[in-house]
């Protein structure tokens, strides 16, 4: 199941684990990323908490945790090469995997059609 937030994150949900990243639209708006900071594995985060920080040449931006959960994996590849987020935001440029406290809460997020309407 693919879901989106109005903060321009995507979630690919398999069982009770969501792989989270930023959308192609967000990556394009941010421009070339030069630095990514990701949450440590084992961190519990509430929905809306700052989960990651991305920096372009010009500015820093926060990436928020889209649902309550625990970080079970972070993508070291984008820390080593932040340009992956620009080149493949919804694939190799994923940020972290979140074990959801309440998988049913994902139903309230945007589906792809609703997100596309948001950014249209």
């Amino acid at each position: 199941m693919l879901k989106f937030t109005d903060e321009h994150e995507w979630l690919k949900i398999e069982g009770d684990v969501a792989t989270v990243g930023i959308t192609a639209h967000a990556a394009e708006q941010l421009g070339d990323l030069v630095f990514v900071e990701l949450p440590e594995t084992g961190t519990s985060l509430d929905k809306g908490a700052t989960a990651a920080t991305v920096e372009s040449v010009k500015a820093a931006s926060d990436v928020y945790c889209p649902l309550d959960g625990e970080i079970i994996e972070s993508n070291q590849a984008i820390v080593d090469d932040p340009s992956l987020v620009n080149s493949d935001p919804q694939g190799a440029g994923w940020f972290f995997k979140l074990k959801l406290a309440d998988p049913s809460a994902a139903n309230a997020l945007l589906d792809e059609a609703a997100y596309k309407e948001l950014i249209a």
Partner: protein
Amino acid sequence: MDDHSPLKRTPLHALHVSLGARMVPFAGYDMPVQYAAGVLKEHLHTRAAAGLFDVSHMGQIILRPKSGKIEDAALALEKLVPVDVLGLGENRQRYGLFTNDQGGILDDLMIANRGDHLFLVVNAACKDVDFAHLQDHLGATCDLALLDDRALIALQGPRAECVLAELWADIATMRFMDVAEADLHDVPCIISRSGYTGEDGFEISIPAASAEDVTRRILEHPDVLPIGLGARDSLRLEAGLCLYGNDIDTGTTPVEAALEWALQKARRASGAREGGFPGAPIILGQFAEGAGRRRVGLKPDGKAPVRGGAMLYADAQGHTQAGVVTSGGFGPSVDHPVAMGYVAAPHIANGTQLFAEVRGRYLPVTVSSLPFITPTYKR
């Protein structure tokens, strides 16, 4: 600035939009922050080939001496800037500062001697205040005009000379800070060999009506890409150049800002025209005694950029304040974060380890000499 007033447009606005620029408000103007290539590529292209910038938002001011003698305009302007204007040769340009009575900096600017008049280029956000300041103090000796019928572009980078040489062969005879008049595509332009990127390059003042045509033709050259404000900022930061409002303002003096080089000998203690500019006692006192703080380069040890506003500490726990970052970001050409800021005198030596507060952590940064790149000015 009034955030509700409509944004002004430069004569090249339609060109930016047609090139797919992302436009942002800057100093009251709707300006391109980046084009399709993006900030990183635009930055690297400028240092590798040639980048074209629209700087038409900046103020272009003419000071024409009523007496007809350029010396009178030069001496009048010297009352507002701690710069040797009288000693500036015909068709030469130099960097200057407007100071206030506290020794603070009202704006930074370029001053050119154009034979029968002085030609100034001032910052966009300050231009109306600067012009009023000039009228107040120079109105009796000079006729002043803030030009609203000219565009200003900059062509910067190692290929800039070759690109312009195809339009005007004599461009190669100019050296850094020379000024000349020449026709580019049959349009009379005022060209200076200067810029704000650390690269060799030129700034070109063009009549507004012809600006888009001339600029489009220069952009047709395969070596030239349009460059937005994003890369302009990272280029000037790598070059160690101050952005007015960030790195210098009314609360910083030229000595604190490490801009002593902008005060020529004639205006310093024991010079031919010592002092005689606003704030001279304070500024010349700091020359002699030193200032309590100084603008320095800062190289973050890690990969995380340290931005303007970050506090600096002498220790990793954030107990002893050492200063503040005024500009910071990522330097694409040096491939690491770069910053500058004001640091208390005990901590200004190159190699000093300081700590910048970023998102609640204290990241090590090292005081480093400016610029971060080696400038390629054709002196």
